[in-house]
């Protein structure tokens, strides 16, 4: 090897080494972290999640961390059942005073937290006080109206409210932020404003380990009161890309994926259909996709245009035909929705055209669009595909259906932040594809947050005084019958004014390898699966 070659090789390698040193100068010492040696006994069930669950900061009184992990660790006082019926949770029975200001809960006996400490009235008082003290929860009814919490004996809790409170049981049943946490979870123990240490709840699981951005591992809570604790470890593995989740299911790196927590794009379902190695589980959801209408738009201010759009939308084409049963804004699984009380617009393009012509729109054969004094109907539909990839296809189907009734739709697929800017602040949309909330937040909390309209706080999705009055009516009664009557009128009003364009009723779809047995859906979408009942068959 001639000297010159050695010299130039040295020069090149020194430069490379310099680059490498500069590159890895910041790495911490120690080899790449390899997985901890597995305890031989506990086999792992791995679930794919779309985002980091921030396992080490899941404080029951906040919205930190993933909903699924939150509801796996903490139990609610009362549980949310089918169609909105409230069932017993940590409280076996409860009474609501006539004036709706006093709620008395009788707590379950002999229940322990995962650290063995006693579940009693004190721990409930501590949890509620801590949640109310957190100013981020100010918009919730309990936080707004709670006066004081009394504990007459170790297993009775009485909540006194300053004025009538009608949503207490619904808010208590939700995943966050009113579930019960042990006083030992904070430092100093029992202090409502103590510094959060470790999640300790009465739920079926407790936190085992957490690796940021990678996985959250839960082990069973041996003191679980309701059913037998699970013999396995439950791992929530972060997989951000939808296709990666599909592939991870196929090569066994994860056992379960789907639902809101780790969604599998619907177009990938055929890979797992009639395939013995996998089982597809489907369950009704309470969420639906709908389009928010911007009343400020000159065309959309006219009711007949809104109605024509509803009539022109063929929801059966959505999601490869799975959208056939759409009738009205809310699914039948939503509380206070009965088979008869939600009128809806069925697909009838001709009627839609008649409505437009009746409202003074002329058909322009050249541009094949309806126009009024020379201006064709052109609408900007804002969507986002980061959280809901399927919205792109729906928007394109909607676009072509509107073309059939002479309305030109331009789709704007915005980046997530710009999308929420359009919805909440700058209102730069004519139509915007959004979704309803889920379970206990429907219909009241969802309707008040989007349709409640006062001069001070204008309605976000639609501004209608009559609807607002009806919503006020709900807040004045705790009797289910009275509330049902008001909701019947609310649904009729939503339909009559065509305030929204319902597009699709979602379904909860989970896919798991067939060696996972005894799969059962949870009570709310935030706690989608009864993880502790799962079994692994060899």
């Amino acid at each position, binding site marked *: 090897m001639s000297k010159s070659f050695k010299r130039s090789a040295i020069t090149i390698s020194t430069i490379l080494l310099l680059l490498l040193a500069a590159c890895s100068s910041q790495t911490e010492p120690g080899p790449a972290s390899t997985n901890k040696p597995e305890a031989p006994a506990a086999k792992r069930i791995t679930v794919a999640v779309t985002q980091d669950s921030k396992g080490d900061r899941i404080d029951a009184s906040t919205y930190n961390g993933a909903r699924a992990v939150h509801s796996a660790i903490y139990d609610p006082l009362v549980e949310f059942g089918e169609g909105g019926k409230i069932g017993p949770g940590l409280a076996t029975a409860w009474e609501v005073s006539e004036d709706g200001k006093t709620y008395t809960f009788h707590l379950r006996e002999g229940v322990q937290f995962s650290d063995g400490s006693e579940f009693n009235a004190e721990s409930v008082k501590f949890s509620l006080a801590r949640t109310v003290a957190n100013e981020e929860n100010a918009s919730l009814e309990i936080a707004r109206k709670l006066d004081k919490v009394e504990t007459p004996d170790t297993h009775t809790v009485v909540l006194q409210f300053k004025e009538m409170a009608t949503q207490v049981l619904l808010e208590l049943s939700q995943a966050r932020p009113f579930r019960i946490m042990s006083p030992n979870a904070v430092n100093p123990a029992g202090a409502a404003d103590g510094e959060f240490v470790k999640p300790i709840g009465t739920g079926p699981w407790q936190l085992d380990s957490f690796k940021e951005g990678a996985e959250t591992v839960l082990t069973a809570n041996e003191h679980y009161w309701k059913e037998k604790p699970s013999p396995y470890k439950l791992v929530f593995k972060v997989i951000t890309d939808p296709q990666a989740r599909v592939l991870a299911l196929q090569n066994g790196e994860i056992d379960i994926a789907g639902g809101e927590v780790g969604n599998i794009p619907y177009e990938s379902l*055929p*890979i797992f259909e009639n395939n013995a190695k996998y089982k597809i589980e489907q369950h009704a959801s309470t969420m639906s996709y709908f389009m928010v209408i911007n009343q400020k738009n000159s065309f959309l201010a006219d009711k007949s245009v809104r109605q024509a759009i509803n009539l022109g939308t063929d929801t059966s084409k959505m999601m490869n035909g799975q959208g056939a049963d759409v009738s009205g804004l809310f699914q039948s699984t939503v509380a206070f929705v009965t088979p008869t009380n939600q009128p809806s617009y069925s697909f009838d393009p001709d009627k839609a055209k008649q409505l437009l012509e009746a409202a003074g729109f002329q058909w322009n054969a050249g541009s094949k669009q309806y126009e009024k004094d020379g201006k064709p109907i052109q609408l900007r539909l804002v969507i*986002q595909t*980061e959280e809901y*990839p399927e919205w792109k296809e729906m*928007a*394109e189907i909607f676009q*072509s259906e509107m073309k059939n009734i002479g309305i030109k739709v331009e789709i704007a697929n915005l980046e997530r932040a710009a999308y929420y800017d359009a919805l909440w602040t700058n209102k730069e949309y004519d139509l915007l594809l959004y979704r309803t909330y889920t379970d206990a937040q429907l219909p009241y909390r969802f309707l008040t947050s989007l349709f409640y309209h006062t001069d001070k706080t204008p309605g976000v999705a639609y501004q209608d005084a009559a609807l607002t009055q009806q919503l006020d009516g709900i807040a004045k009664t705790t009797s289910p019958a009275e509330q049902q009557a008001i909701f019947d009128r609310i649904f009729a009003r939503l339909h009559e004014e065509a305030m929204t364009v319902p597009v699709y009723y979602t379904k909860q779809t989970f896919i798991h390898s067939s060696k996972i047995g005894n799969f059962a859906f949870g009570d709310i979408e935030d706690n989608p699966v009864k993880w502790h009942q799962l079994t692994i068959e060899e």
Partner: protein
Amino acid sequence: MKKRFTSFAFENKWTTAALLFLTGLLIVGILASWLHPFDPYEPNYEAKLQHPSLAHPFGTDYLGRDLLSRVLAGIPYSVFPALIVLGLVMVISLVLGTLSGFYGGRLDMLLMSVADLFTAVPNLLLTIVIIGFLGFGMENVYAAILLSWWAKYVRIIRGLVHDVKKEPYMLSSRVSGSFGFHAIRRHVVPNVMPQVLTLIILDVSRVILTLSGLSFLGLGAQPPSPEWGVMLLDGKNYLQIAPWMGFFPGLMIFATAVAFQICGEKLRSRFQLS
């Protein structure tokens, strides 16, 4: 000049093929509207996700639209803008790179720090701001690509100019007091051009792919645009169900890239000889 071109065109079969392909692209791109066998935008629910067949040589997509028509309709959205962007990048970086490489000193320092600035800022952030600020539209996406790409080129061209500046004939021309601009035009640019051309030709496909990357991050062309990058992204979602949805746009990008490479290579060798 005419004789030179024909000899260049039919020099060997590869170049001819490449040139034919590119002219084909150009023609179809311009006259696209009445050339497609089907309407590239109209969904046709009965023909969803069909295999490539005689009726649909490239198969159909998730809304039953004919992919061949969409690919042809996509030419003006994918190839032409890529060339415009590259042309602008070349001009800007040639000017800045030459100035900073040739004159050096404070101007060079300043330009390099601004260039470093733009290479270091995450171009996703840059793109979001530009699109958020200027509003939607493909020209803003291209402006964003331009802004994050010029820096790399300036740095490379500065390196090349640095090389050329040291050549003896350059020294003699500076010694003889030839005015800087004249020296640049006559000596520096012709010498740097072959490398710059190679550089630019390399990146034709990368501009289209950057667009596809931006759509992956939620910032690309708006539906139902038949832009190749976006179609490539849709193809990824249907990888195992309808692989042809991603394959054919990808094939077109590859073919366009190869055609540009071959023409660029031959042009460059012509540059060198003259």
